[in-house]
């Protein structure tokens, strides 16, 4: 599954932020995760970005409005981490979450916030490497997208 994620560029995140975005900003990322997928995102914080994590008993509880409210609360990007397909303890939670994310991406596009600020990734159980890579990818994407224009 490592192939499915584009690798972040090889230079430091601070550099990226500086070059692509002129004014330096410290991205705020909200991570929704199913506690079956990962037990904690602790340790993922850094000087370059802020992370707030929202734990859910199952990814099927990802409701549209929660994702939107995260943006209202100032998130520059929202990441939903779910169990890989077929691994959901509650059968289809991750599929449902995928559909809802797709719908909210559309709403974000309509608002003009850019649906690319919201992404969903499958994460094999407690795979910290993958989590780390996803966060780095998000930070690098944000360098291009800039801060949330509605915050």
């Amino acid at each position, binding site marked *: 599954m490592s192939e499915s994620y584009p690798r972040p560029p090889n230079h430091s995140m601070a550099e990226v932020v500086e070059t692509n975005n002129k004014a330096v900003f410290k991205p705020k990322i909200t991570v929704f995760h199913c506690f079956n997928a990962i037990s904690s995102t602790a340790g993922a914080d850094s000087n370059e970005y802020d992370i707030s994590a929202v734990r859910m008993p199952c990814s099927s509880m990802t*409701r*549209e*409005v929660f994702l*939107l*409210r995260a*943006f*209202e609360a100032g998130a520059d990007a929202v990441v939903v981490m779910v169990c890989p397909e077929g691994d959901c303890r509650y059968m289809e939670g991750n599929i449902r979450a995928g559909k809802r994310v797709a719908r909210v991406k559309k*709403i974000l596009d*309509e*608002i*003009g*916030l850019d649906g690319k600020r919201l992404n969903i990734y499958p994460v094999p159980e407690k795979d910290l490497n993958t989590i780390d890579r996803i966060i780095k990818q998000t930070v690098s994407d944000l360098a291009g997208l800039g801060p949330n*224009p*509605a*915050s």
Partner: protein
Amino acid sequence: MIVGQQKPLAEIKAEVVPFSKLLILGCGTCVKTCFAGGEDEVATLASSLRLAFKKDGRQIKIEELTVERQCEDEFIKEAAAAIARNDAVLSLACGAGVQMVANRYAKSPVLPGVNTTFIGILEKQGLFTEKCLGCGDCVLDVFAGICPVSRCSKKLMNGPCGGSHGGKCEVNPDTDCAWQLIIDRSKDFGQLDRLSTYVPPKDWRTSNAGGPRKLVREDHII
């Protein structure tokens, strides 16, 4: 149930632009079932609108409320205080609900947030289909329980047109030809020959063609 679909965000935004305090009023009956105007949709829309206005550098205060049914006075009474507090109401009910609210609260602008589309069913998860046009003179008995008025694109009463193909309607290959269904079902009952009887033109007076309709139940008027 009445099936409807939320209007595009841009259209709703344009409707509410003159107001700074807005009540989004949901309805917990039909439009909730078809995911157009229940609590969840009210919350999602409120959040989307707040974000959209904030992005444009504008503030809008949005209050959310969902009542059981907007087409009954009994239930919309509950919204009185919330309506009084706001500049306008964006109703996510069907067209009937919107008008009921507008009728009771004559001083508040009441705007539609949903396009009311048809009387239909939940055919399967995520799929709603039209089944009735409310013609006021039901003829389902003649047509093996399948309504040619709402489900045949040409409202044909005497058999399929020449465009019926492979069970699908000429108008849309994703739509079943109502007449194929009528014939199949009649065959299942062993009543295909019934369809050889000439069905006279429909009397449309009972439909909307006869003007807005009213139903009076004397036994319920006290």
